[in-house]
């Protein structure tokens, strides 16, 4: 009797182990990797600012620059995001936007990057005709605020998905 029950207990343990493996592999990355620090947001914003002002130095014309920014910002937002996620991956070992990201978060990120363009452009347009010594830090702050808001929303979404999956 005892010898009959051993294989069954061992199989049950094996199946429970499989269930635990699935839970760990499904939940861990987007719950432990989404605690992104502000320095990553600042780094992404700094990259955006440098790109924007390099263009200004090349163009030297506010109206033309605005047209360039119209092209740049949609490019700079995902570039900045990608840059920040690489920094995060080096620090935390998890890149929230590159690997093991639930599909809901992927859709959220796409929407966030697309939304960040008009938001950032709107703020940049307010300071575009100001002197450079005002516009330069204003661009940086605007970029930081936009990225910061997006990232906080990303973290909330990641936690919500993690909680509902758990």
């Amino acid at each position: 009797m005892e010898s009959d029950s051993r294989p069954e207990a061992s199989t049950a343990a094996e199946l429970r182990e499989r269930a635990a493996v699935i839970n760990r592999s499904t939940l861990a990355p987007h719950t432990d990797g989404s605690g992104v620090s502000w320095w990553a947001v600042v780094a992404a914003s700094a990259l955006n600012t440098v790109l924007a002002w390099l263009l200004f130095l090349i163009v030297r014309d506010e109206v033309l620059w605005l047209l360039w920014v119209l092209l740049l910002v949609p490019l700079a937002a995902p570039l900045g995001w990608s840059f920040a996620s690489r920094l995060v991956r080096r620090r935390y070992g998890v890149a929230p936007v590159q690997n093991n990201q639930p599909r809901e978060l992927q859709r959220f990120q796409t929407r966030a990057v697309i939304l960040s363009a008009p938001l950032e452009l709107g703020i940049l347009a307010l300071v575009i005709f100001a002197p450079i010594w005002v516009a330069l830090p204003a661009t940086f702050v605007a970029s930081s605020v936009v990225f910061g808001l997006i990232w906080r929303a990303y973290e909330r979404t990641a936690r919500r998905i993690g909680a509902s999956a758990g």
Partner: protein
Amino acid sequence: MTTAGLDPVIHPVKRLAAMSILANSHSVEYSYLRERLEISDSDLSKQMKALVDAGYVQTRKTGIGRGGSTIFAITALGRTAYTTYLDRLRGLLGGR
């Protein structure tokens, strides 16, 4: 209780962990998978080859040489097999 009816390709722990990660991802880099599973290069290659040979996973190479990377993604067949595996496992564990 038996493990009969559970897909033998997915059932080993390392492959199951890999499939769980892939099923919840758009795509996964080789290095990321190796770190998550905490296994050696050769072991990961062996496990992923079994999944690729079964048609559950597809690979894509990016870059050349040392800067290159292998990206894995689950296929439609792999997703179906994984979902079936989950359903059967839940059934065996009494619907938990």
